[in-house]
């Protein structure tokens, strides 16, 4: 069994690959993962895989923001963007595409040609185009993420690029009496506006959209409509990095 781990800012994602090639997935809250299942041993993080119900993998490959700060014992560490590119290739069988990964706190755009990473862009120190922004805005509208991700028509115009000030602006729009659908569409459009310059710089014929935010169907529709290219969301967008780690382990 091979184990790929993506140490994200909000969740730790684990992909296990059996000898027959089948994959299984596990997700943990990042803070509780570190607090309850890991302990520091000589500057390294030791994780009790058996206690997590993950068995004893032959090989562990890890990536993610946490990889810089946490040295996972017994794991081979690979660069985050590499893991995501490998995951996207594995999941879609495509080799030429623009990868868009929107995670809990960061956004990445990578241009991939012939299976190789050619160039990339990442967001600056701001969570305005990420899952965290969507969670905050859904909370303001008092709806869940599934409801939020249904709306893309007649968006209200939200100009703020800050995930926190955006809340105040959204409340203002609620007071103005816009429909819930327009408000939700406005939130989804704001994400698009924020990532558009990054995508424009690294465009290709296909966008592969991964990360937790890829489950937002409205955003998929907006991307297709505004950019005029197909948007492929793999079966397990949130586990893409972990799957990439498994691919690497297999190589």
């Amino acid at each position, binding site marked *: 069994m091979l184990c790929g781990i993506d140490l994200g800012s909000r969740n730790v994602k684990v992909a296990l690959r059996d000898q027959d090639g089948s994959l299984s997935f596990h997700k943990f809250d990042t803070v509780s993962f570190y607090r309850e299942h890991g302990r520091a041993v000589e500057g390294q993080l030791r994780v009790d895989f058996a206690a997590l119900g993950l068995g004893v993998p032959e090989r562990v490959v890890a990536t993610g923001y946490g990889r810089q700060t946490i040295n996972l014992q017994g794991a081979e560490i690979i*660069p*985050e963007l590499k893991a995501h590119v490998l995951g996207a290739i594995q999941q879609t069988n495509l080799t030429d595409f623009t990868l868009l990964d929107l995670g809990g706190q960061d956004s990445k755009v990578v241009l991939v040609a012939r299976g190789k990473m050619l160039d*990339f862009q990442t967001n600056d*120190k701001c969570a305005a185009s990420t899952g965290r922004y969507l969670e905050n805005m859904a909370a303001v509208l008092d709806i869940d993420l599934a409801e939020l991700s249904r709306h893309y028509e007649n968006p209200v115009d939200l100009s703020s690029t800050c995930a926190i000030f955006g809340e105040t602006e959204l409340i203002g729009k609620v007071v103005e009496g816009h429909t819930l659908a327009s408000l939700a569409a406005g939130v989804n459009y704001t994400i698009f506006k924020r990532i558009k310059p990054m995508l424009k710089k690294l465009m290709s014929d296909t966008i592969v959209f991964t990360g937790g935010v890829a489950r937002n169907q409205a955003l998929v529709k907006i991307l297709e409509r505004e950019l005029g290219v197909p948007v492929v969301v793999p079966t397990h967008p949130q586990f893409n990095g972990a799957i990439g780690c498994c691919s690497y382990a297999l190589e």
Partner: protein
Amino acid sequence: MQKIGMTTTVPMEVIYAAGMIPVDLNNIFITHENPQSLVEEAEIAGYPRNLCAWIKGLYTTTLQNEDIRTIIAVTQGDCSNTHALMETLEMAGVKVIPFAFPFDRDYDLLKLQMEKLIESLGTSWEAVQRTKARLEQVRQRVKELDRLTWQGDRVSGWDNHLFQVSCSDFEGDPEAFASRLDTYLAELPQRNPIKADIRLAYIGVPPIMDDLYDYLEERGARVVFNEVQRQFTMPFAIDDIVEQYRTYSYPYGIFYRLEDITRELERRQVDGVIHYAQSFCYRQIEDLIIRQKLKYPILTLEGDKPNKLDARTRMRLDAFLDILR
């Protein structure tokens, strides 16, 4: 001897010729034991949070170093934030001498600026010319260090950065600096070669974090060209001192700088380019020109706070090295 602060490189020959000691405020700021505390101090005084950390650092550095009561501020050829820095320091009782590098590199205008500086500090062209010859002795040694960086494998990117960046004021004592450099060069053959399969160029202002070069070398990549730091060494050997500061590229436009950059990238056989711009700096806009003009893989880095690389920047560096491999 009187110390004269400066906000960036100015014709320091004039300061030495006047029997004064030039102090590059940037160097004092960044080598402070806690540079971030200086930035915060300026914010408490009222400097905006979303502003270049260097300007804030220079403000507090000047106020804290009470032996520096006169500064030369570069009002053209560097950022316009310097104007407000001058004004707030004037409010605090610091004497400010403005100096402008003409945008179009006009010889006569630059000569006039230097003439006014000479008058202001009470020296002469003859004394300045003699000082230039004195400093040339030191600059020659730094040029050798730079040559050994890209033609050899024992000078680290950090050492190349540090020695060259120090040439903005020669740490107030050119001969002592030269002697330290001589020792370094003499010990070089005993050093272990740096193992790195990727050769990088670093262009843009010097980094506000001090662990960038080591981080790259730990990952098998090394910087063999530090653009602006090298400019501080006056790399073009020119007798006419006005012409020397006219060919010095840092204070002038990006297109002129690119001529030097392009030449050096070719000569030094680099695999990729790191373009560093300070957060909130107008030079971030010039990145789009650099990306169009240079036919090399480019990583744009933005530095905000001193002193260490943040997780996001490290992630981007890893990805860039991965692309180059």
